[in-house]
Each structure stands twice: as C-alpha cells, then as structure tokens.
C-alpha cells in the first residue's frame, strides 16, 4: 500500500488547472502549425496564425488561452494499492479546482442548479470526475477544462446495427455540418463506438482527452475509420471558425467497446482547437 494525502492531490489539481488553461499542449500546437502551412484561404490562414499567436502570448501575459475556462473534467486512474487519506478523492479534486480557479484568475462558470441562472457556485466546482481502478500504487490524474461552446456540439446516437460503418460516418459528419462554426473549429473529434448509452459518451471523451493528437488507434479497422472520418470532416469545407478552409478537424480519435447484438451506440465528443489538458502522476 502507498499513501497519498488529500493535500498532495488538491495541490496537484490546482496547478494542473492553471497550467492547462495557460499552455496549449505541444501536439496541438504542432497540428495547428501544420494546418497553417497547408491552408491557402487567406481568412483561414489568418485565423490559424491568431491561434498560434494567442498560445505564444498566454505564458507572457498570464491570461488564459480562452475566456471560457470551462467545466473541469478529471480522469483519474487510481492504483488498487493506493490508500487515500485526509478526505475522498472527489473532495480533494474539488479543493484543487477551487484553489486553481481562484489563484489563476480563471472564470467561474458552474451553476449549482442547471435551471437557476443565479446559482453560480462561485469557485468553478464541482468537477466531473471519472474514476478507474487500475493496477499499481500510483494515482494518475488528467485535468481537462472544457468550454461550453464545443461541449454543446457533442452528441449521442443509438444507431441500429444495420446502419453500420456508413451510418457512423453519416451521423458524425452530419453533426459537424449542423454545428458549423459554433464549436470553434478546427476541431478534435472523439468518437465512442459501442458499449452502452453512457459508455459510448465516456469513450468518446477519453478518445479526445487521453490520446495524443493524431496517434491512430492500434486496431487497423478503427484507424481506417479515423482516417475516413477526418477526410470527410475536412471535405465539408467548414474551415476555421466556419469561415471556409481545408482545416475543419485537426484529428479524429475513435475508441470502441463491445456492445449488445441489438445495439450500435455512437457518441461524438466535439473538442474545440483549444484542447486543454494536463496530466499529473502522484
């Protein structure tokens, strides 16, 4: 058994909230740079250059990348030999969010009651926490602040098995066309295939947040589906901010899970270009 205390977790989450909101990950920066080199449309090029310039400015100014510093989603892989002391994992994560959003001057965007606009919690808690028990004695936390604009473009479908692979492509590309410039393209698309209604959604979000950008699925069939979805998304011509161009999506990641013979659950997690996340291992 290895002991990890409340304070260690809270402090790590606080730092990760600030870090994630101020620094775009290197894989996202590299993909934006490559997109800029491939775009020919002047408006698209200008927007992509602004995204890179913004990321260059944030460490210098101390301002977050985006004013929507998001709802904090935390993926926690908890080793079965870890003993947490001083409070629950959920309490420690929320204390970290509370401190990080205060110290980092990040926006507090969370309503305690979804239908009561006056119920802002004032500290951006609570986070949404997804916990997995894994082997070992480490605690791995990935902190991912997610803006409302792109989260609102995400979707879940319960397709019929007969709709198959083409049905998946049609649903995803149809949704991308429908939302257009709303979720701040260029996008990163996470697709969760199979499982159940809720498992598909979690797989989709894990696909976006936890996999390095453009790393293909090791399953060759799923990697081919990722390539086809990326090509179809970019063939829409929606482009950066919906104003036209070749770059509608920077990458597509598909994760799958076994499913019932009667079902074909499908989820799409739409991530804006400001794909913010920070992983820490304790």
């Amino acid at each position: 058994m290895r002991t990890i205390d409340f304070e260690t977790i809270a402090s790590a989450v606080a730092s990760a909230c600030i870090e994630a909101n101020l620094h775009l990950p290197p894989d996202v920066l590299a993909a934006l740079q490559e997109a800029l080199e491939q775009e020919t449309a002047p408006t698209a090029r200008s927007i992509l250059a602004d995204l890179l310039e913004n990321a260059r400015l944030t460490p210098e100014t101390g301002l977050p990348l985006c004013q929507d510093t998001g709802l904090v989603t935390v993926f926690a892989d908890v080793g079965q030999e870890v003993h947490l002391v001083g409070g629950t994992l959920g309490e420690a994560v929320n204390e970290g969010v509370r401190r990080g959003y205060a110290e980092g001057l990040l926006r507090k965007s969370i309503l305690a009651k979804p239908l009561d606009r006056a119920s802002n919690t004032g500290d951006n808690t609570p986070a949404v926490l997804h916990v997995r028990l894994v082997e070992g004695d480490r605690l791995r936390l990935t902190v991912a602040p997610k803006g409302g604009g792109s989260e609102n473009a995400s979707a879940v479908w319960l397709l019929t098995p007969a709709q198959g692979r083409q049905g998946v492509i049609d649903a995803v590309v149809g949704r991308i066309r429908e939302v257009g410039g709303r979720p701040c393209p260029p996008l990163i698309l996470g697709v969760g295939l199979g499982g159940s209604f809720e498992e598909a959604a979690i797989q989709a979000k894990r696909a976006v947040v936890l996999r390095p950008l453009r790393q293909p699925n090791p399953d060759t069939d799923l990697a081919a589906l990722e390539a086809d979805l990326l090509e179809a998304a970019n063939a829409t011509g929606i482009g950066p901010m919906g104003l036209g161009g070749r770059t509608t999506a920077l990458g597509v990641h598909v994760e799958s899970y076994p499913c019932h013979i009667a079902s074909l659950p499908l989820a799409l997690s739409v991530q804006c270009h400001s794909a913010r996340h920070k992983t820490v291992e304790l």
Partner: protein
Amino acid sequence: MSEAIRLSTPLTAEAATSLQAGDAVLISGHLYTARDAAHKRLRDLLDAGEPLPFDPEGALIYYCGPTPAPPGRPIGSAGPTTSSRMDGYAPLLHAYGVRATLGKGPRSAAVRAALQEHSAVYLVAVGGVGALLAERIVAAELVAFEDLGTEAIRRLTVEDFPAIVTYDSHGGSAFAGDD
C-alpha cells in the same frame, strides 16, 4: 484577406451598409459586453418600457464573458462566446438601434432578416484567442447588472479590435456553405 477596414463607434447605418460579408474590420471605440443573462434583463427592461443601461443607437454588442482582470490589466481573457444563444434577443435590440453584434458561429434566419431590415451587421471574432483579443482592449468599466459577475454589461474601450463581417446588411454571408 484584403486590407482591414477601420470602423469607429457609434457605428452609423452608412458605415454598416457599406460593409460586405468577408470584409476584415478593425474596430475602435466602445463595445458593450452582454451574454444570455444580461440579454434577458435588457428585454425585461424594454418590455417594461424602461430605458436601456446604455444608448443603443449605433451600439455594438459583444457576446463575451471575460475572465477576472489581473492587477495592472483592464480585463482578463476576453474572446467571443457562441452567438446563436442570443438569437432570440438580437432582432429586438437591432430595432432599438444596435448596429452590430460580435460573437462566433452561425445565427438564425430571423437574425439575418433583422440585419437587412435595420441596416446592421453580424461580426465574428476568432474564438479561443481571448488573450490575444485582450491586447486590443484598453479599458473596461461596469455599466449594469454587477450581480451577474462575468455576465454583467461592461463598456470596453477598444483600439483596432479585429473581426470579420460575416452577415452583411444585404443578405450576404461569409460562412462556408451559405449562399
């Protein structure tokens, strides 16, 4: 992109109607921030026959809820939010003289019709570059609804704030796939 057109506020009908979808603009003057909650209150004021907390004639409304201002800066990160959530309010505000709204993403047919009817335009600012856009904001002062926090109405003084004319007052659109 061709050279940007400089605009100053209050924006006249003549200036607004001279713009074409796809034009790049640089705005100097004042922007009024307002999001969902502030728009609901503005509509409630108009419904009650009360005056608005700012002069709507020629005004430019910016759909923005900034992060808190660090010491020594007028404002925090301050990019656009999704405009379509305010579609239900925009035609009313254009009828009272608001000449432009600034946000991101597509809008309803009713909003596009209101732009033509009231000689107004819809501008898009690049989403997710709140730190970059904050560099063009030189002052921010509270105008109304302080209790709404980030959703309060603020008057931003801007210099060369960049945007793209996305729906013009003649029915034109810069969005990919629009006619």
